[in-house]
């Protein structure tokens, strides 16, 4: 038998009486650790996806919405822009690269994005199998989407209109998309997208009718009743614009004619020259386009988010302080009814320091128990959140990681637990056993 065994037994003996303490402590710890996990993974996701995107060019509307829709693919787009109109911006010498993104369809609720192979290259996403899409109606699927949809190489599917699953049977398009490749998991947005040449989107929605300016970026249901006749002629016209390649300029002129009709949802721009932020905004003036800066918008979002997080953390810290007080009070009060058993331990040869350690250990165990429950709670919470995120954003959080911040949380909590039991332990140390034993 050891002091540690007695402390352990005492801790469980009291577990009933200290349920409230444990509850408070585990909620405090749970909330804080959950905030850590969320914060860490959200900022990880945001930062990974923002990469080197300097601007997003898209239809007028909320700049944050534009960013969320086109960089993170979690919000509805602000609308569409005309490829022809966008030319003067994306061809500007301060722009190094422009990647087109065209929305319009989904497969089982997973977004099909019309773009160029540069999009995945830009995020350094490698192919796992197959090849990168080349011609219209070829798709290369992100790893997570492929896994969840059970898509295999060579498989074909029909798309649904819009960004959400709800499109009914008759609203589906007739063209068959063919899976030609699957990307490797990268932790970026590519994982949950289905990529196809931008021409696929155009051909699906064809050019029978022109939207004046985009309405929510989703080509309306009537449009696709029109025939989907026109094929390959546009196959390459929206190729990633790479101004480093000289031949582009000549082509651009000819292609203007066709491009007039075509729309994309946005362009992701990477600047070449530092003065781009001064020059480009001038160019979008008096158009129905806007230029949003992901870094600034996400910063703003983070700030607001950060305030919310801080409030939640403050509440959690308050709960923890109360729980430490509660640990202290419960140990201190228990001393009164336990003074006899402590006195007996002394008569049996127990030294003062052993009683001191006993009480400290009891506090320690109590806090450790709350801590463990709290850390488990936060994992359960994150798992639930992850399920929700999976439903609404096709994204998930990892609940089974342990962050460095959590080591601090563990250390500080255990430390404070010891501090809270210090005074009761000292009282046990200085107890007058004879007085205790004769007052019965």
């Amino acid at each position: 038998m050891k002091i540690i065994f007695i402390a352990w037994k005492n801790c469980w003996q009291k577990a009933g009486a200290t349920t409230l303490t444990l509850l408070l402590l585990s909620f405090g710890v749970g909330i804080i650790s959950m905030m850590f996990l969320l914060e860490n993974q959200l900022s990880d996701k945001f930062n990974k996806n923002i990469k080197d995107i300097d601007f997003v060019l898209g239809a007028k509307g909320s700049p944050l919405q534009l960013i969320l829709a086109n960089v993170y693919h979690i919000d509805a787009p602000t609308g569409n822009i005309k490829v022809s109109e966008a030319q003067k911006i994306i061809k500007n010498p301060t722009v190094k690269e422009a990647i087109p993104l065209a929305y319009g369809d989904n497969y089982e609720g997973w977004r099909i994005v019309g773009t160029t192979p540069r999009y995945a290259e830009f995020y350094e996403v490698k192919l796992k199998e197959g090849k990168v899409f080349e011609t219209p109606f070829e798709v290369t699927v992100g790893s997570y989407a492929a896994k969840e949809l059970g898509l295999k190489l060579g498989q074909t599917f029909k798309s649904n209109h819009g960004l959400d699953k709800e499109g009914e049977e008759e609203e589906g398009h007739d063209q068959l998309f063919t899976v030609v490749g699957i990307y490797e998991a990268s932790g970026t947005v590519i994982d949950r997208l289905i990529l196809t040449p931008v021409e696929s989107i155009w051909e699906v929605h064809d050019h029978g009718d022109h939207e004046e300016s985009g309405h929510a970026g989703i080509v309306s249901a009537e449009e696709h009743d029109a025939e989907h006749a026109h094929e390959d002629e546009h196959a390459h016209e929206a190729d990633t614009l790479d101004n480093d390649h000289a031949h582009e300029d000549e082509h651009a002129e000819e292609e203007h004619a066709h491009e007039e009709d075509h729309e994309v949802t946005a362009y992701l721009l990477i600047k070449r020259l530092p003065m781009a932020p001064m020059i480009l905004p001038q160019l979008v003036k008096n158009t129905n386009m806007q230029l949003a800066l992901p870094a600034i918008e996400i910063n703003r979002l983070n700030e607001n988010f950060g305030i919310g997080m801080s409030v939640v953390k403050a509440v959690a810290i308050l709960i923890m302080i109360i729980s430490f007080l509660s640990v202290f009070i419960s140990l201190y009060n228990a001393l009164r009814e336990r003074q006899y058993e402590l006195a007996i331990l002394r008569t049996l040869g127990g030294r003062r320091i052993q009683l001191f350690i006993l009480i400290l250990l009891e506090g320690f165990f109590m806090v450790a128990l709350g801590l463990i429950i709290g850390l488990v709670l936060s994992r359960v919470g994150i798992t639930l959140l992850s399920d929700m995120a999976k439903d609404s954003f096709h994204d998930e959080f990892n609940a089974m990681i342990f962050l460095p911040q959590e080591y601090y949380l563990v250390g500080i909590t255990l430390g404070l637990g010891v501090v809270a039991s210090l005074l009761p332990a000292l009282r046990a140390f200085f107890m007058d056993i004879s007085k205790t034993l004769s007052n019965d």
Partner: protein
Amino acid sequence: MAIIQTTNLQYTFSKGPQLIFPSFQAEENSELLILGSSGTGKTTLLHLLAGLRKPNAGEVVVNGIRLSTLSGASLDRFRGKNIGVVFQTSHFVQSLSVIDNILLAPYFSNNKVSKSDAEKMLDRLNILSKKNKKTSTLSVGEQQRVAIARALLNNPSLILADEPTSALDDENAKDVLNLLREQTHALKAALLIVTHDNRLKEEVRQRIELTALKS
């Protein structure tokens, strides 16, 4: 050599009576009753003898060692090894079973006592069947026997008992007295019993009376 010897013990409570105790000594294999009506200082004397309280004057010598020369941890350890105390009211560690409670005695005094020794002791006190019970579920008489088992498990040379039979019926009182006596002889120990139990007065010859206290 006397196992315990006291000389001119005095104790004064800070806001209470001054207690003056007669000197006495007890040899190996001896039994001594400490009698006196309530409030005459029997429990206080017992605590002085066990080194739980320090006398204002006088000396307690146990096994040739003056308790006043020991302090802190060494006194605690000396007490644990040499003195077995049965208190007026039994107290136990609530979270532990009967057997674990009595094993606390060898643990805290660093004595080597096996679990089977502890079980033997419980058996002799007719409470072996309760060994895995929590002490709070026992009757007062059973609790008292557990307390006695705990005091004797370390084979102390001085056994101090404060009203050990007060909660027991005739039969169990006799058993307890016999057990205390047996152990006393087996260990060549000295047995001091504080009591006003008439049943014990008939059994034990040697006695000291504490008289009404001076204030």
